[in-house]
């Protein structure tokens, strides 16, 4: 078959250039090594951070915290688990939920379930 005879090696003036497939595989190999290092780094970092995660968990237990401090702009996104369906509209009865973080996170799933039954 013709493909078995195709070497892919280009020579010009006696100088052989590297096969494209070799370059491609080299590129893939480098990427795969980096991917492997990514997992190594993740594992290493996970072990390093374990102490700090423990510290945060201890703080949650000691102070009695219920939420992560992800968004501080609105009470219902600052304390996601403590929010209810009305919180976002407490400014006034016709007020629309308008904080950007409100578009990133939804209400707690427990609330949606209760609401679902009522609908």
């Amino acid at each position, binding site marked *: *078959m013709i493909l078995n005879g195709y070497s892919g090696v280009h020579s010009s003036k006696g100088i052989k250039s590297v096969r494209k497939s070799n370059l491609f595989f080299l590129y*893939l190999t480098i990427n795969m090594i980096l991917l492997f290092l990514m997992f190594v*780094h993740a594992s290493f970092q996970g072990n390093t951070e374990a102490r700090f995660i423990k510290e945060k968990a201890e*703080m949650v237990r000691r102070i009695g915290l219920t939420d992560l*401090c992800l*968004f*501080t702009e609105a009470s219902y996104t600052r304390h996601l688990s403590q929010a209810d369906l009305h919180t976002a509209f407490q400014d006034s009865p016709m007020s629309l939920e308008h904080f950007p973080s*409100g578009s990133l996170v939804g209400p707690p799933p427990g609330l949606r379930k209760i609401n679902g039954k009522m609908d």
Partner: protein
Amino acid sequence: MGKWIERQRNIIDFTLSSLLRRKGKNVALVCVYTFVVFLLASVMFFIHSIKKEASIILKDAPEMVIQRMIAGRHELIPTGYMDKIKNIRGVSSVKPRLWGYYYDPVIGANYTLMVPENSDVHAGNIIIGQGISRARLAFEGDSMEFRSHDGKIIDLEVKNILSLESELVSSDLVLISEDDFRRLFGGSKEYVTDLTLHVKNPRELSTIAVKIAELLPDTRIILRDEILRTYDAVFNWRGGMMIVILLGALLAFIIFAWDKASGLSQEERKEIGILKAIGWETSDVILMKFWEGMVVSFSSFLVGVLLAYGHVFFASSALFEPALKGWAVLYPRFKPVPFIDASQLATLFFLTVVPYTVATIIPSWRAATVDPDSVMR
């Protein structure tokens, strides 16, 4: 085996040469493809990391929080409710919690003020989170002014600053003594913000919750399991921004797939015709197109994933920062912990690489089965 490998390499050589002939188009394709993978992988890494960390950190959150609701709003709860709850069989302890929000007009930020369960903080002192320290330039020994409910200015000394590593839970936190809290917000000592409850047997939690709801119908009960589920569902795909990002990515893939599946360009069809005329078989053409799809999609996938990892775990998701910050003045500086596993990559691979590769092969197979003479004309 060696012959088989050599054959694949020859086809890859040819495929790469063919791709390089349309350099501009293919480089643009790889760039866009890489960006789509990067975006999806970044979202996936970030969300998974936050969810995982939340599940570990919040596993020691109060077993049950009891709040009083009046007219759909969270109201202060009378301490007298504690005695009623204590009498329920299976309840180990009920503790009051005092917490609230304070708007600081100096920097326009909201703080979360909290009285810790144990008396870590003495009257006249406060412990603040790193976010507040940064925004107010307040350090240990400095004093911070608060305006109380009756308009008086209260000076409180910063006794300590919570650690940098704990920012994810404490960035906007002000730990304050009960006396100062009441001086600041007023109100009767017979009322607290909400109650936390511990039970003897965690399996009885839902039964006790039902009993409390029957005994105190004006209360709302939040179980620890619900807190954990809230963070498991956080950044749900149905969330506004999430769906915009996912729809954008989906649209990009539909365009890619459409471009490929709707047929090959005249030049590509001619190329296939020539290859068939010089002796290539249909299977060889399909193999070439398979490698073409793989070269584009797999290269983009690898680079996209690596860039996403760097973006989320080295650059603290800098691209998402404006969206995450919103209008907040206090923003916790935290580096997500890289909780990644092979299943995340496998999901991403099957969502991005496989559809593109399949979409590349099908029209090529159709073109490869047509008579070379008619294709070349």
